[in-house]
């Protein structure tokens, strides 16, 4: 009987936490679907479709994300102090969100999307529910992984200044990451991989430059450059 009473309490406990988990997962699944939509619009960038057209499509989806993160925050309010208990349920989706937002932001401004800016874009700036710092950083690494492909396609489309700009951005980003004392974990692994992205972009820049295509005007021999 004592055993039964105790297990009755366990049953309730497990049902509550199970139901929270289900609700978090349900929202996370929607976030993932929205991510897929945004991604399919951003892929148009690789096809050199006009930026405004792409951005317009994306922005309405970002409103969806905002709403969904607001839902996450609401559910989290029901279990104060247990953010990290359920964190695994939205972690990887959030990393993907950061990656997409940061790529968009870079396209628009040429700068790195800050952690606070990311939260703001998701309407979380006044919420207790924040984006975990490691999720933010991992998202940034994911974004860096996409840049080599972007550079290759831009050059094919005749934009010979793109490699230089991306190279500069990646160099700064890499330098910033080096300030962190990363432990031997997933983030470190992603960061270590960033050097391959750099290398690929450097090689594209090299290709463009040695062929006198680089925009900055100095050709390599005597420089009658710029021809594209």
């Amino acid at each position: 009987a004592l055993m039964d009473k105790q297990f009755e309490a366990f049953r309730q406990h497990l049902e509550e936490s199970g139901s929270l988990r289900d609700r978090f997962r349900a929202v996370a699944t929607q976030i993932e679907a929205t991510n897929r939509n945004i991604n399919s619009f951003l892929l148009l960038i690789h096809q050199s479709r006009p930026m405004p057209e792409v951005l317009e499509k994306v922005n309405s989806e970002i409103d969806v994300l905002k709403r969904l993160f607001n839902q996450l925050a609401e559910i989290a309010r029901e279990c104060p102090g247990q953010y990290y208990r359920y964190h695994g349920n939205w972690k990887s989706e959030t990393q993907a969100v950061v990656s997409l937002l940061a790529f968009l932001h870079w396209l628009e401004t040429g700068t790195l999307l800050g952690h606070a800016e990311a939260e703001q874009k998701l309407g979380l700036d006044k919420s207790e529910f924040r984006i975990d710092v490691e999720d933010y950083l991992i998202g940034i690494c994911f974004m860096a992984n996409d840049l080599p492909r972007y550079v290759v396609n831009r050059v094919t489309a005749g934009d010979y200044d793109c490699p230089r700009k991306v190279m500069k951005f990646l160099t700064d980003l890499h330098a910033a990451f080096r300030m962190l004392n990363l432990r031997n974990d997933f983030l470190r692994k992603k960061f270590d991989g960033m050097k391959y992205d750099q290398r690929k972009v450097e090689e594209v820049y090299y290709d463009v430059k040695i062929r006198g295509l680089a925009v900055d005007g100095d050709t390599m021999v005597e420089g009658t450059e710029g021809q594209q």
Partner: protein
Amino acid sequence: RARTMTTDSSSPNPIEAAFSGYADYLNQLNDKRERVVKASRDITINSKKVIFEVHRISKHNKEKVLEKANKNLAAVVDQHISRLVKELNGTDFWKLRRAYSPGIQEYVEAATFYNFCRTGSLLTLDEMNAALLPLSDPFSKPLKINVLDYLLGLADLTGELMRLAIVRLSDGELEFAGKICRFAQEIHRHMTVLAPNMDGDTDMTFKMDTMLQSVMKIENACYTVHVRGSENIPLLGSMDPSYPMMLPDLE
């Protein structure tokens, strides 16, 4: 071939009667499955041959190659897909799907590959199914390629497009390669959205990865040729500077 085996002839095994029914059912099902699998294999082999043929395309032989491929594609339908239609006979499309799906996917791959080379556009599922309609007799449900098999076939198509693009680039057909590139990009882009919804098909995650690799290989190849072709050749003053792209003349 059901065997009769009683534990003891004096007390007949009461379970047996029921099981002889199950045995018949399973035997017929297995035989049909076996025949469907064989038809599927033939569809696969012959569709692969069509794909090989289309790969032989070049500026100079386009009409001839495509005509032959078209004929062989029609032969796949007439000789082999028709067998499927007969076996499935308007039912069991889903029950036996796993038995014929590989063949149908390969056929989708071949047909869309051929069609892209002919028209530059995507052969739609409705068009494909319309072409299969005559195979079925008017009284039973016609065989329709389902969306899943169509999409799985399309996913493989990008691999063939990649091979085609690389060979066409070697052959100097830059414009065609660019067209292939955009076509593959679009298919990949659309599939990105659909992939996770495909009836929980676990292959799809893997196929998406392969698709992205293929698309990037096409992009990289186009990039290389573009960058090379855009180069200033300062040392060779004798060359016509307006000469736009050298590759076409390589051949």
